[in-house]
């Protein structure tokens, strides 16, 4: 289906100007988010996925700056509009929920006060009406006794309920795009499932697009439609979810999938991608992943690969992706 994306990020570059040097947290990232769909952004800590989200909303720290690129929301470039315009979009057209709801909600205000604030900011309703809307929202996200809960403080709610409250707040103005930055990482596993269920339900109802940022591949597998794999500030693979899991082409993706422990085959050792994520102040020359790559060759130490098309809506940033294919064939052969 060739519909146009709700949100389109083109060649986004966000750098941080610190005392110790320039940190290129996001260095040329492209992806599209479509209405009603979930885009997963996966990668290890420090790969730049959170910074991407903050760049889209332009709520970076003082030291961060978008140096290049476009963020198109329905054809409007968010990087170019002024702050006042941007504020109208934040919380209204694009909403975000963070990882730890305990610290993401202000401890000195009640849950109700914070939701009502969001509502009244973007919609022309009075406080009474906003409060009614807030109670409805709390009910919708599955919080029992919302009339009581609305006047409680964040520390009086459990972790799962806090996250639900955050979701309620984020959805209060029916955004086009919901960015979820590690929404379930701080929650118990059973609650995780509930929250993801909730988000999917609301997505169906509101038809909104979701940008799911996480390091958890399991979450991606269950909830994403398309996936972006990021490493060291760049996109290294971009495909729809089935293709990514069945037919990965980047050595990093390959490594990540391998690292998932499996119950159905015999494993004597758990696989682990060797090495560590590079220090953003001292990126290696050539391909940023090459020090950890099992398929690397001499060329990788000098040149940085561009994104190439390897299939339908499937791009990869690697010179030797065929080697991954070959390795996969061998692996499949092992199980036969």
């Amino acid at each position, binding site marked *: 289906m060739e519909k146009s994306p709700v949100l389109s990020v083109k060649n986004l570059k966000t750098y941080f100007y610190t005392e110790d040097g320039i940190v290129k947290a996001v260095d040329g990232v492209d992806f599209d988010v479509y209405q009603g769909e979930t885009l997963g952004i996966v990668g290890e800590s420090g790969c730049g996925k959170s910074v991407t989200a903050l760049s889209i909303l332009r709520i970076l720290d003082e030291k961060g700056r978008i140096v290049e690129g476009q963020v198109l929301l329905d054809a409007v470039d968010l990087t170019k509009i002024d702050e006042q315009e941007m504020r109208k979009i934040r919380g209204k057209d694009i909403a975000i929920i963070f990882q730890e709801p305990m610290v*993401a909600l202000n401890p000195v205000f009640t849950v109700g006060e914070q939701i009502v604030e969001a509502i009244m900011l973007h919609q022309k309703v009075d406080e009474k009406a906003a409060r009614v809307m807030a109670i409805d929202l709390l009910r919708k996200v599955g919080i029992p006794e919302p009339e009581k809960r609305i006047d409680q403080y964040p520390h009086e709610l459990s972790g799962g309920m806090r996250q639900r409250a955050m979701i309620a707040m984020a959805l209060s103005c029916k955004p086009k795009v919901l960015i979820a930055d590690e929404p379930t990482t701080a929650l118990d596993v059973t609650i995780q499932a509930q929250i993801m269920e909730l988000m999917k339900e609301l997505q169906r109802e509101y038809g909104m697009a979701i940008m799911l940022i996480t390091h958890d591949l399991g979450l991606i597998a269950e909830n994403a439609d398309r996936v972006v794999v990021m490493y060291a500030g760049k996109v290294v693979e971009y495909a729809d979810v089935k293709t990514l899991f069945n037919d990965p082409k980047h050595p990093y993706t390959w490594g990540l999938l391998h690292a998932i422990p499996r119950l159905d085959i015999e494993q004597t050792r758990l696989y682990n991608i060797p090495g560590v994520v590079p220090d953003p102040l001292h990126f290696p020359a050539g391909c940023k992943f090459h020090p950890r790559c099992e398929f690397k060759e001499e060329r990788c130490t000098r040149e940085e690969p561009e994104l190439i098309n390897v299939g339908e809506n499937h791009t990869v940033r690697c010179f030797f992706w065929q080697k991954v294919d070959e390795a996969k064939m061998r692996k499949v052969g092992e199980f036969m």
Partner: protein
Amino acid sequence: MLTYVVRRLLLLPLILFGLSLIVFGMIQSLGPDRLLAAYVNPGVLDKLTPVQLEKIKQKYGLNDPMMIRYIKWLKNTLQGDLGWSLVGKQPVKDAILNRLPWTVELALYSIVPVVFVGVWLGVIAAVNRDKFLDHFVRIFAVVGWSFPDFVFGLIVLMVFYSILGWFPPGNLSLWADQVIKSPEFRRFTSIVTIDALLNGRFDVFVDALRHLVAPILTLSWLWWAYLLRITRSSMLEVLTKEYIRTARAKGLAERVVINKHARRNAMIPVVTVGGGMVIQLFAGTVIVEMVFNRTGMGSFTATAATQLDYASIMASTLFYSLILVIGNLVIDILYAVVDPRVRLG
């Protein structure tokens, strides 16, 4: 919330009891003969026969065992008999009642500039971190903190009084003093500025204020610098918190983020410090009243100390202890008001 307050209030008599024991213990360390001077006007003391002296010792229980003495002392104190003040040349109770309102007036009025200037500047410094304004304010604060209050007071005295003649030392000009001592002047609160207004004597009000400006300036000087530091670092810490990011992500204007979301949280440690600071303000009146030659509990205490007027010193200590205990109670209550997380505890 109510239970929290009630619980704290119930602790009050216990603490006062403990403090009274300490104070009492200190007096007793002086021995019965030195203590006599604390209870009787020395002019009279010399003329008493040993028999009469014994009778007085009996009355104040100076020969009795510790427990009995304590009870007698407690009884006397609660009845208002605090002994004789050398400094005031009157019973201690009267000496204190005459001086208390002046000090209360000075300390309470000083809270205003300290809080407003300190907090206001602290927020500015935090929000403009590392820019010129921040550095300027911080240097100002460091210098302020290094300036002893009495040095500052002397300079203020020199500049504003000796050179400019605007703000004289003392409490009131002679004519105003006579007005408030006259029978037509009704005392409602004993605090001169308020009473003057209630009596319709605007001129007395202005005169009292004139005498208050320099002391207030000096007294608050040290503390606004301190409050500024605390506000600034508290604010800076709050600004790094996640919920500030959430607030921005909701689309709130930066001004709202700072003044509503950040400040409420930043104020929590400031309130606790601020409370302690009010107690320090009372302590600071000792120096300030001496520098500006004002009547009040502060100069009373200082003079009593230099002249070894034990009765007065004891009573002053009790007074300041009371302030301390009440002050701490107020801090605890304020803390619960400002931080909802504390209320259930």
